[in-house]
């Protein structure tokens, strides 16, 4: 049912309308029923009371007549001596005159009888004749109520009704004491039949199921519809016989109330049929009897119930008729809603042109349709706006990406930067943020001996920053080419940029010139993070001379040069705040400490590895947090090129000719066995002294075992190539492998005092190589490690056949 109602608004509305109408109908019916009911009950009560009253009145008439007759007789007798003849005559005449009196007695007390000629005379009707006789056993009569009661009570009494078997009728006797000087001398009575009582009660205008009852002064039923009750049961004995204690006590209470001598009425459960009934009762004052009229409530209310049944039927028919307009209203409300639902579904599917139901009225559905129409227009406009905005955003994004490309293309990215200058190992990186920042770096050879280095950061982000960066970088580079002095160049550039700098953008910049020969570094700083200088023993200095203002802010600002002497293999690290201020998701920055820690740990790596790993370290720190600023770093290592002795040739790094011999080994230890033979062959061909051959054997074995053991991440086969040259007294060997980058020359000097376990792998071998060989070099070329060792062959003239010397001499 609930499902049925939930499925359709039509069902629900119809049900609600019918329910409402039904409730109103019930209320009206109920109200009318109860108001009518009380009126009807009140009127029935009134009727019943009137009826009872009139019945009592009718009962009292013959009783009153009998009382009057006996009273007259008694008064007459009280005046004189009571004698048989007169008494007999009195009885006879009375009976003749009063046809409703069945019998009459005059009884003298024992004492009075002593002074008279009779004891008890009784007259009665025998067929049409009246008989008057002496009672046979007066002693027994004296014990009877009709004599005994008035005698002792000294007042007239009605006896309890009794069944007289001679007259074959229910009778009652009125007995009147005849008192003389305060003493009862005789009793006069009359008997009347109670046959008429039933006739009287039967003629009462009662309903079908109503009944009249008459109780004696003892509560005994004189008249009752159930004849068996009469003269045997009392209202209390019937109460006593009820199995249900409630009915019993209620009946008992009614009995007590009825016997109280006052009129009244009561509602009770009728013991005969267990239905609610009303009883109305009134005493019959003369005898102390009580007349009761019992009406079943059902009977009283029957016409009302009938009327209500008819009303209910009419109401139900009305409800059925109401169903038609209710359905009509429900349909008229829901049909546009259904059409609207269809349109809404089409709209949801993207069809903005689906027709909406036509608006014909001004009701809620019409307002909903109008609102829906407006929503559709708004949606259309919104989608149009969104399309336009998206296009603009895409254009801006395109511009930003162009700016990033400009930025990236403007910084030198070709590494190794100076392939022909082994003194300089330089690498730089710029990782742009998603929003283009304005970081820059730059370097170039100013001449044979000087390198220009710069790093900078433009304030702000986006296209303006990248443009200013391009300007600043170009300007500084060209100025440096002209003036070759960082302070002067920056002073000039500052003036250029300050001029007309309405947007108040600026560039922090560090600019330096490194003398490759001497290691002297001249630099100036325009508000940039001071670079760090790390020496091979991992001591780090900060180039922290007071910096000048950032470029582009203070026109006419003058920048100071500072200088510092770089030691052999010192590493200079330039960076922007993108490095130190890189944040992780919990907003913890990488900080200078992080950078210093990194430098301390990794400063012996070559520049490329150092920078690349720095970039990685910063990214690891960021742990996926979005990069907010460009990350830029530049490292340069200055290496003192050993003084050119007779045995050292620059050209040895890049031999001009093919090697005298080549051996290719697999990265397998078992393949190592081929090497000694090859060395012996070369020793013979190149006339190498046995001492050297032995050393070569040890050096090569040491190195190649290192390579086989540590260089490869995978287990596949790789080639290790050995090349050998001899030029006069110079012997040169190259070992080339494609393993991971490893520069043995920058490895820390082995601490031979440490125990073997604490030393670094390969450390002792490298130490041995350095001790044994005169030269020991490393380069990374095209993804390959190339280690070069050289030795001056002892016992050969040092100054002969040296092409280097010749060149130099030239």
């Amino acid at each position: 049912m609930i499902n049925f109602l939930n499925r359709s608004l039509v069902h629900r509305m119809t049900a609600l309308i019918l329910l409402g109408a039904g409730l109103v109908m019930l209320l009206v019916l109920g109200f009318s029923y109860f108001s009518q009911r009380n009126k009807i009950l009140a009127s029935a009560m009134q009727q019943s009371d009137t009826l009872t009253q009139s019945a009592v009145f009718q009962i009292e008439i013959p009783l009153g007549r009998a009382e009057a007759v006996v009273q007259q007789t008694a008064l007459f007798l009280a005046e004189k001596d009571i004698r048989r003849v007169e008494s007999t005559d009195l009885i006879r005449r009375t009976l003749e005159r009063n046809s409703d009196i069945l019998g009459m007695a005059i009884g003298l007390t024992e004492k009075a009888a002593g002074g008279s000629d009779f004891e008890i005379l009784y007259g009665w009707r025998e067929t049409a004749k009246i008989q008057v006789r002496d009672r046979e056993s007066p002693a027994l009569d004296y014990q009877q109520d009709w004599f005994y009661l008035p005698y002792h009570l000294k007042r007239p009494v009605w006896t309890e009704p009794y069944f007289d078997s001679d007259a074959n009728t229910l009778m009652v006797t009125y007995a009147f004491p005849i008192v003389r000087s305060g003493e009862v001398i005789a009793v006069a009575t009359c008997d009347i039949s109670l046959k008429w009582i039933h006739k009287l009660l039967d003629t009462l205008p009662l309903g079908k199921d109503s009944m009249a009852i008459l109780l004696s002064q003892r509560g005994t039923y004189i008249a009752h519809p159930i004849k068996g009750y009469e003269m045997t049961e009392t209202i209390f004995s019937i109460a006593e016989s009820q199995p249900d204690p409630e009915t019993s006590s209620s009946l008992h209470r009614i009995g007590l109330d009825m016997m109280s001598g006052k009129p009244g009425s009561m509602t009770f459960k009728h013991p005969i049929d267990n239905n609610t009934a009303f009883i109305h009762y009134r005493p019959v004052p003369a005898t102390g009897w009580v007349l009761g009229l019992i009406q079943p409530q059902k009977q009283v209310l029957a016409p009302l119930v009938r009327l209500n049944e008819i009303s209910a039927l009419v109401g139900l028919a009305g409800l059925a008729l109401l169903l038609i307009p209710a359905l009509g209203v429900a349909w008229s409300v829901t049909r546009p809603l259904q059409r609207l639902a269809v349109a809404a579904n089409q709209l949801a599917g993207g069809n903005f042109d689906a027709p909406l139901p036509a608006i014909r009225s001004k009701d809620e559905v019409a307002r909903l349709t109008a609102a829906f129409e407006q929503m559709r227009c708004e949606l259309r406009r919104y989608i149009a706006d969104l399309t336009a905005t998206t296009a603009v955003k895409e254009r801006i994004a395109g511009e930003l990406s162009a700016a990033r490309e400009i930025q990236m293309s403007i910084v030198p990215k070709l590494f190794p930067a100076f392939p022909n200058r082994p003194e300089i190992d330089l690498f730089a990186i710029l990782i742009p943020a998603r929003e283009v920042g304005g970081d820059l770096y730059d370097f170039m050879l100013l001449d044979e001996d000087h390198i220009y280095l710069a790093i900078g950061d433009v304030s702000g982000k986006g296209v303006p920053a990248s443009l200013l960066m391009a300007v600043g970088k170009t300007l500084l580079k060209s100025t440096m080419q002209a003036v070759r002095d960082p302070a002067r160049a920056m002073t000039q550039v500052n003036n250029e940029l300050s001029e007309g700098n309405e947007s108040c953008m600026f560039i922090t910049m560090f600019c330096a010139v490194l003398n490759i020969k001497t290691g002297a570094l001249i630099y100036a700083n325009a508000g940039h993070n001071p670079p760090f200088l790390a020496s091979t023993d991992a001591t780090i200095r900060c180039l922290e001379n007071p910096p000048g203002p950032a470029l582009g802010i203070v026109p006419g600002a003058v920048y100071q040069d500072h200088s510092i002497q770089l030691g052999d293999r010192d590493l200079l690290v330039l960076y922007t705040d993108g490095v130190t201020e890189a944040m992780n998701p919990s907003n913890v920055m990488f900080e200078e400490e992080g950078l210093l820690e990194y430098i301390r740990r990794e400063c012996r790596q070559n520049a490329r590895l150092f920078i690349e790993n720095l970039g990685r370290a910063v990214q690891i720190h960021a742990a996926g947090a979005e990069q907010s600023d460009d990350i830029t770093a530049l490292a340069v290592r200055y290496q003192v090129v050993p003084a050119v002795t007779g045995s050292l040739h620059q050209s040895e790094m890049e031999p001009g000719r093919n090697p005298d011999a080549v051996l290719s080994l697999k990265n397998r230890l078992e393949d190592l066995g081929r090497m000694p033979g090859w060395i012996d062959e070369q020793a013979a061909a190149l006339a190498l002294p046995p001492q050297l051959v032995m050393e070569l054997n040890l050096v090569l074995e040491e190195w190649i075992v290192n390579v086989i053991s540590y260089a490869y991440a995978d287990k596949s086969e790789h080639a290790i190539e050995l090349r050998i040259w001899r030029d006069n007294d110079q012997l040169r060997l190259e070992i080339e492998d494609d393993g991971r980058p490893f520069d043995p020359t920058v490895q820390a000097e082995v601490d031979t005092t440490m125990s073997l376990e604490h030393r670094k792998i390969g450390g002792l071998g490298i130490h041995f190589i350095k001790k044994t060989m005169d030269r020991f070099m490393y380069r990374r070329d095209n993804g390959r490690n190339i280690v070069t060792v050289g030795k001056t062959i002892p016992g050969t003239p040092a100054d002969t056949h040296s092409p280097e010397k010749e060149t130099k001499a030239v």
Partner: protein
Amino acid sequence: MRFHLISLFLLICIVLPAPAGLAQNPEQVAVTLHWQHQSQFAGYYMALAKGFYAQEGLDVTIMRGGPDVRVGEMLRSRKTEFASFMLSSALEERAAGLPMVQLAQVVNRSNFLLAAWKNPAEGVSIDDLKDLEGRRITVWLQDFRAPYLALFASKKIQPVILPQYYTLSLFLHRGVTACSVMRYNEYHTLIQSGIQDKDLEIFSLHDLGIRLPEDGIYCLDETWQQRPETCRKFVRASLKGWAYARDHEKETLDEVMKYVRKENLPTNRMHMSWMLREMLASIFPAKGDDWIFGRISRRTYEDASGMLIRYGGLESAPPFKEFIKDGVANND
């Protein structure tokens, strides 16, 4: 001559006891009750209805009593072999010269009560027996009066006693303060007339120490002498009838109502029901009661007869052995 034939017949009956349960030639006997038909005599009705008499070989006729029946006269004139009497009435008859003996004491508990209006008049209240001093009351006559006189004597009070006959009308008309009632009969009549217990003060003579056993089975001494077996059979069957009534109250009540309707008596079933219950309680000893079903002890007899002599105007009482015969003997 005729007398001799009867004597001979009786002699044969004594010498040759009729086989019990023999339906043919049952011995014809009559019992006269001392009042109108009611539950007071339910045991006899049931003995007859359930065939207990027939089983003993007796063909019993039950005759009612009432104000118009003199039961002693019935015995004397040999119209009835057996009779039901109150003990007191029986002793009076005996004292008056009727040679009768008791075969069984059926009712041992006394049902005599004195019912008084709690408030008989303005400002008077009856809470104690002593409150009846000098007030008008009605009490039955003759032997029924003895226990009340004994009571008043023992409590040393002197009410004004009017005669009480068959109804309680005078009391109900409030013509007297108190009246005598039987617990099984008139007391309930008061209740059925709408009198409530709260309006009455009830004094139980039995509880106040006046023990007067009531109904018993009696016959002429000569009957006992000549036909002791017949006497025993009658008593046995009658007591069996009472026991049956005790165990089948509803059936018994139905049987009582048959008698009541036949006589067209102005009583009702509820009243008979009450009477039956009270009778059974007076006949069968409950826990704590000191009598034996159907018997009277010598001491009770002597106490009762003494009381009747003193207060009931009884001239003399026969010795226990002479008056109380063991009609129940074979019954145990």
